[in-house]
């Protein structure tokens, strides 16, 4: 199978790999680079479990060809904790029981992170809108919405 080189930063670290030509970013991250935090739920763009942040924008790694990410800065949920300390969103998801089976969680956290990066104090409606491309089959969404609002509050308290 034809191989093609890709080079990008993943959670701040330089990555350079030869991948199968036409491979999706999801497959490249999981199977080649070993970051299994983005999940493959539907491979159709519908569930949001594969969400990652590419150059500051939320994207679906299952519908993104890895080759189109050459030179990009990619963030995944596995890059959020620092020195063993959880990111405020991760902490809030744990505390609010917003993660049950956990399959949707990395995608939810990515969607929530781009929201909070741009809108540090979102309204409930803004949280719902930001998470509207992500499906959760366990929680009923309310704990997730509360976790994002809690993380936003703890961020603004830390900043104060």
């Amino acid at each position, binding site marked *: 199978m034809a191989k093609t080189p890709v080079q990008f930063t993943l959670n701040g670290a330089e990555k350079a790999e030869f991948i*199968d030509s036409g491979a999706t970013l999801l497959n490249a991250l999981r199977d080649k680079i070993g970051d299994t935090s983005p999940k493959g739920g539907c491979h159709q763009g519908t569930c949001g479990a594969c969400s990652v942040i590419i150059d500051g924008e939320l994207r679906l790694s299952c519908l993104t060809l890895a*080759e*189109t990410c050459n030179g990009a800065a990619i963030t995944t949920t596995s890059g959020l904790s620092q020195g063993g300390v959880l990111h405020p969103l991760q902490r809030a998801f744990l505390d609010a029981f917003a993660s049950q089976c956990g399959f949707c969680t990395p995608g939810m956290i990515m969607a929530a992170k781009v929201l909070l990066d741009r809108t540090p104090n979102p309204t409930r409606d803004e949280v719902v809108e930001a998470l509207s491309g992500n499906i959760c089959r366990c929680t009923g969404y309310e704990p997730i919405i509360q976790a994002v609002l809690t993380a936003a509050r703890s961020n603004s308290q830390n900043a104060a």
Partner: protein
Amino acid sequence: MALALQTFSTVKDANAALKAAGTRYLGGGTLVVRAANEGDVSVSSFVRSTEPALSTITVSGSEVRIGASVTMAAIARHPNLAALAHAARAVGGPAIRNMATVGGNLFAPAPYGDFTVALLALGATVGTDDGEVPIETFLAKRESNHAIVTSIGFSLPIDGGLRFLKVSRVKPKGVSVLSIAAVLKQAPDGAVSSAHIALGCMGDRPMRAKAAEKALLGRKLTSDGIAPALAVASDGTSPITDPIASAWYRNEVLPVHLGRLLLA
């Protein structure tokens, strides 16, 4: 199956590469990569162009030109395109909007193509290296189009703006039951002097509601005034049936939603 991706810095070279059998243009990939993931073996190679003009929005006075690779998110946040923000935000969720392009939306089969419904009501033109054609002509023959769409052009509506409504069962993001866009001009007494109404999901691709447009002329936007237009709203439609709604249902609810949009 291995898929090749060929990237060209010019549209001209990408157009040449697209002539090979099994090649498909790659916009944001939300439909074509999805098809490949689902096992569509008709595509063996993707072609794309990174020519900067494809990703550029230019607004000069009321004239707008949007490059085909511009995403729904870029339109929704553009300060001079507030009139279209609602229609751009109607496409998918946040991640889809960061990927879905205007060019790709022109080819999206029903129940998709919500943004194209707005472009149809605006009377847009579709540009390729071969020239520009009215969007209606383009949509009628889109299967036979083999040239890369480079841009979409239109004039921003002056008074009344662009009215747009997407009806879906899941809020805030859901697939369309139907979508409607209208650009109306009114005389000083309020009578409609020109009407462009476009419908999504009422055929296999966005279409104009020509009978309703005609019936609105000279009428005021009151319940009585729009009644003749609502009575013929479904003329010429052939709605899709899908898991969201049957063709019968779509035809039944079209006049209700068109009425709400016109009276809003």
